[in-house]
């Protein structure tokens, strides 16, 4: 099973949302990281055929998804970034409606709905209006909807936005369990969400894929480029002017400024426990630094 994205570009008027993207997805969990406006949702809209494609191909096992049509759609579960629901339907009714739309009929549909409602901890409020749910509960209804029909390809656009830590971890673990013989695409800008579960991580920046690989590889690539500098308040301001992005950490009364930089930095201490966040910052920083040189 393989989902292949070939030379895909997309622009809205003058803004280039995606530029010449090439990725191949096979079984496993793919975390797609990127800043706001990086093009994550646009990529997903194209994969779900919710947006008109301009150039390039999206192939499932070698066949264009548009040619597969219904066959492709019945394999996909999709949870959009923006919450969409019928205010006047209860959770149960909404899921039933979606099950019908997905072509899952009768008892089988009911069985799945019941199971999923338990997984997302909504079985107790199954008969209450979705419109009256809290943001996180709505989010869980939408996740359950995506999981209906046991999809082979699961596309989740920021599934954990607005969830409390407990639900976030619960859902993350559930998704991790699902990953067997499934393609799961998972976009987020919350790094910790995918750090633990993603088999492979993609970093999108300004419409381009700037990095792709397993967590270990990404971390290895920036070894020695993460540095912690302890400083006082005045020095901190100086450093912040010098390095655009950095983390200010307060540790035992000291201020520690953690920066990622291409150029070697003499002051400070090289860090060994590099996290995905550092990788993410590094990749976006690269572009920033480039920009600085040009101007």
């Amino acid at each position: 099973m393989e989902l292949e994205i070939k030379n895909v570009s997309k622009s809205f008027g003058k803004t280039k949302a995606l530029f010449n993207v090439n990725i191949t997805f096979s079984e496993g969990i793919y975390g797609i990281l990127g800043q706001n406006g990086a093009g994550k949702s646009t990529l997903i809209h194209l994969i779900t055929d919710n947006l008109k494609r301009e150039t390039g191909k999206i192939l499932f096992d070698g066949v264009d998804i548009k040619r597969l049509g219904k066959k492709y759609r019945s394999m996909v579960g999709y949870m959009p970034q923006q919450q969409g629901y019928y205010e006047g339907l209860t959770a149960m009714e909404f899921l039933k409606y979606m099950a019908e739309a997905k072509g899952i009929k009768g008892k089988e549909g009911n069985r799945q709905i019941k199971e999923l409602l338990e997984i997302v901890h909504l079985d107790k409020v199954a008969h209450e209006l979705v419109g009256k749910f809290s943001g996180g509960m709505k989010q869980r209804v939408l996740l359950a909807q995506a999981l209906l029909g046991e999809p082979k390809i699961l596309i989740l656009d920021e599934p954990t936005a607005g969830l409390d830590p407990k639900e976030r971890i619960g859902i993350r673990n559930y998704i991790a369990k699902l990953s067997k013989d499934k393609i799961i695409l998972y976009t987020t800008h919350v790094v910790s969400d995918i750090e633990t579960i993603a088999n492979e991580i993609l970093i999108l920046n300004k419409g381009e894929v700037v990095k792709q690989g397993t967590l270990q590889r990404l971390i290895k690539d920036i070894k020695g480029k993460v540095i912690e500098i302890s400083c006082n308040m005045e020095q901190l301001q100086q450093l912040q002017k010098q390095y655009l992005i950095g983390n200010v950490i307060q540790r035992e009364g000291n201020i520690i400024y953690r920066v990622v930089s291409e150029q070697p930095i003499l002051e400070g201490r090289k860090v060994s426990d590099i996290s995905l966040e550092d990788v993410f910052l590094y990749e976006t920083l690269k572009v920033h630094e480039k920009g600085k040189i040009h101007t």
Partner: protein
Amino acid sequence: MQVENDSSTYVFEKIFSQISGINTYKDNIEQVIGQANQMSQVGIFAKKGSYNASNIEKTKKDYTKLLEVTPEIVNEMPIEAWINYSMCQWILLIWAVVFIFFFMEERKKGLWSMIHMTREGRYRLAFKRLCILISGIVIGGILLQGSTWLLAVWLYGACDLTVPIVSITSFKGITSTVSIGTFLLKVAFLRVSVIVCMAVIIWTIFCIIRTQFLAVISVAFIGGVQFLMYHSIGEQSPMEFWKYCNVASCFDINTIVTDYKNVNVFGYAIGREELTCMLIMLVFIVGSVSCIVINGMMKPIGSIMIGAKIEKYLRSIASKIASRCNNFGIELYKILFVQKGIVVVIIAFVFIWNISKPVVYNYDSFYEYKNQIYSMLQGEWTEQKEQKLQQIEEEIKTELTKWTKEEQLVGDNKGEYDAIYIMSKIRQCNLKLSVLNEIREQMDAQKGMDTIWLVNPMGYHLIFGDIGYGNSGMSTFVIISVLVILFCGTMAYEKQSNMVTLLHVQAIPNNYLMKLKKKTMIVCIIMFAVIAYSLEWYQVYKSVGMNYFQANASSIPMFQDSLYMKDWTIFQVLLCIYILRLFLLVVSGFIMLYFGILFDSVLSAVTMGIIVFIIPSICYLLGLGWIFKFSILFLCDVVNWIF
């Protein structure tokens, strides 16, 4: 539905006119055919292949067909009432629009792309929805038309449905040989089909245009243009085809089925009804296919920017205007545009425009005669007019004596006229005399005043008359309904969108919002009322004509019994009535605003408004028992309780 006051006179009149219609049925047809034959001899009409020739040919054929059936005497009233009652279609249209709005709900962010991604979420879903839409309209149509038919039968009595439709002599343009039953079914079917087509068109427009507000404006624009084309293009003009190949024309089923009209379609004469049927079929097929295809193909995330650009442009204009306005202007903008009040208002105005069109002449066969007399004698009363009136009276009296004599001759088997014919003539004379009598009474009521006036009271009857006669209550009812929709929920809406708490936190006086709303509401009510009543007056004025507002109020029979207004002019009375109405509307507006404070959700506030204002008003309109004394509509019907 209209009910004539003096029903016994009315029934007699009907029967007499029917009998004379039946007696002259064959002659009339032969006359039309004869005329057609004559015309086809004339050079310009005779040219083979021209539209005129084909029109004459068709007219001849249609009328010759009519000779096959013979009309019979039948109770025409339920049929007339049912055919002329066009409200059904409006209700059905609104019903269809409700469905479409439900379909559009998924267009909200997120939901659409989710459904679009499912297996059955494209063509299949669109097809299912089309089926739901059509069956909804069909069921609604059956219920509405069935119930109005029952109501008509209940009010006017049953009628034999197997008799040919040509027996209904008051519909002069029917060239159909079918029975009444078949005819009624056909009309019902046409009405429903037209609504189905319109619904399909509206749905398609809503699908194509992503921004709902723009879609509403487009639909309104197209509807407006079609309406103007239908009403402003003259017959026989070169544009005539567009007058009839038109949504507004197709919507007007009553006229289509009761008027004989051929339309020039590329040089061929085609009956208007056939043209309408063809249009309906065409639109239905093309419309259904296109809306299914559009629904299936269109991507939820828009990349075509034209609509977005227009919207952005309009929004920027709107927000520029809003930024210049004070809070009051913004409040108005919120009610009309953000809460989409403008749509409700426009629908209400179109509705008032349509129902205010008087249909009185269908029911009052002496309308023409009355009008003739009034247009001759109207104005300040003079010696000359008095003489003229006496002269007319004399003439009728002579005629009456003549016919009374003839009646005796018939009794002695010596007369040259038919007995029924004589009876109808005598009745006509008597009725004419009673019309003159009424005029005399109008004059007598003004005894002792400086000047005496004769004013045609028909228009006032239409506007203020008893419920069931003119449209008296209806326009006020529509205004009240609009107010309920716009203002009951508005405070609750602010609460729902957390504005109240927000303002509260920012140390803004508690009643600030309420004061603002009150101001806006008063302006809105004045605007609506002025426009709505102007529309009503214009429609009545156009068909009946209303003059001499400086005349004494007591020259109008319905204003005669007032104790206080003996010396007032008509203008003063009208001013008083409308100021009172306005006052009452504003008071009810205040009550509606307070509902929004009492309730937390828009829905329950509006429900409350419906229970308090609309339901009693409907009861009043239907003339149901004691409950109407509590209705705002009864209060607004000022004439009824002051005079």
